[in-house]
């Protein structure tokens, strides 16, 4: 997975750090954003191969970020994995309808399983 670049959008810096370390150890180049604003700026400046997206952020909802990313895209759609505590069917449905590649409920995943899901999108 050398050379693949991923952006982790997550406001909890502890989780963010753990996920970043894990994915770096898998050979990915990892950047992080703790707010929606920072994430959108980052995405305007750099190209990424995948995004991990939390939904409950301090400024902009993850759903809105997802919507904005998908509206900006033309041909190649960047894989976006929603990684959220929200586990209601209506949230999962909304995330997938807005174009998320997958919807992962945080409590159900260990770090290894999250890394597996990320690696899968590159295969």
């Amino acid at each position, binding site marked *: 997975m050398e050379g693949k670049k991923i952006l982790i959008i997550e406001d*909890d810096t*502890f*989780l963010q750090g*753990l996920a970043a370390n894990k994915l770096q150890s898998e050979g990915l180049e990892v950047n992080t954003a703790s707010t929606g604003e920072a994430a959108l700026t980052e995405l305007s400046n750099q190209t990424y191969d995948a995004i991990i997206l939390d939904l*409950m952020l301090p400024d902009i909802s993850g759903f809105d970020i997802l919507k904005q990313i998908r509206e900006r895209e033309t041909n190649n759609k960047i894989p976006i994995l929603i990684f959220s*505590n929200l*586990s*209601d*069917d209506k949230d999962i449905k909304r995330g997938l309808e807005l174009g998320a590649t997958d919807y992962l409920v*945080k*409590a159900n995943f*260990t*770090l*290894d399983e999250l890394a597996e899901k990320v690696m899968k999108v590159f295969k």
Partner: protein
Amino acid sequence: MNNPEQRDTISIIAHELRTSLLGAKWVLKMLLDGDLGEINDKQKLFLEKTFKNNEKMVDLVTELVEVGHSSESKPLDFTEMNVVEVGKDVLEDFEADAQNRGISLEYTSPVDGIVLAEVNKNKIHSAIQELLNNALKYTEKGSVQLSVTEDNDNLFIRVTDSGIGISEEDKAKIFEKFFRGSNAEAKEEIGSGLGLFAVEKIAEKHKGSVSFESELGKGSSFTMTLPKKH
């Protein structure tokens, strides 16, 4: 919990708790897998217990959110489905736990394996999960049985166990929010006292009810009776 402010507070607390618990889960798993250095058998044992308790706390927070949602005044969406299949799905999740505890887990359903009813699948899934969870937690030996049956108008979901039972004194309070039976507390299993409250709310949302029979030291049987059509 019909007050929107209370619901919001619960949601925020639940979010914070889940995030912290997830961080703990990840670190514990890394320690258990030896990612942060080798651990000895004693350390492993304690870490495994902590990991298990952390998972139970995740379940408790989920229960808390469930109670918040089930108290909302908006009506549920009902879809006609085979409730026997829903029961089978939930039961599968408990097989490993039952085996570890040495409890036999049994399922009774009609011979054709079909009980069609208009239900909210997620809520019924949660309710069966809660009833089975309680039954397994408070049964030391013997069996836990789930049955899904019907008559002309109603669907019956029953969970019967050979567990510690409920005292006469506790019976009147069993569906109260945050109530835990005195013998349940003594057993030192983690519980919030929200589970049966949530089950009753789910039954009410289906215009049904929950009843139970129990004998101290012999076991309990909880039955959800729900109309098949709305």
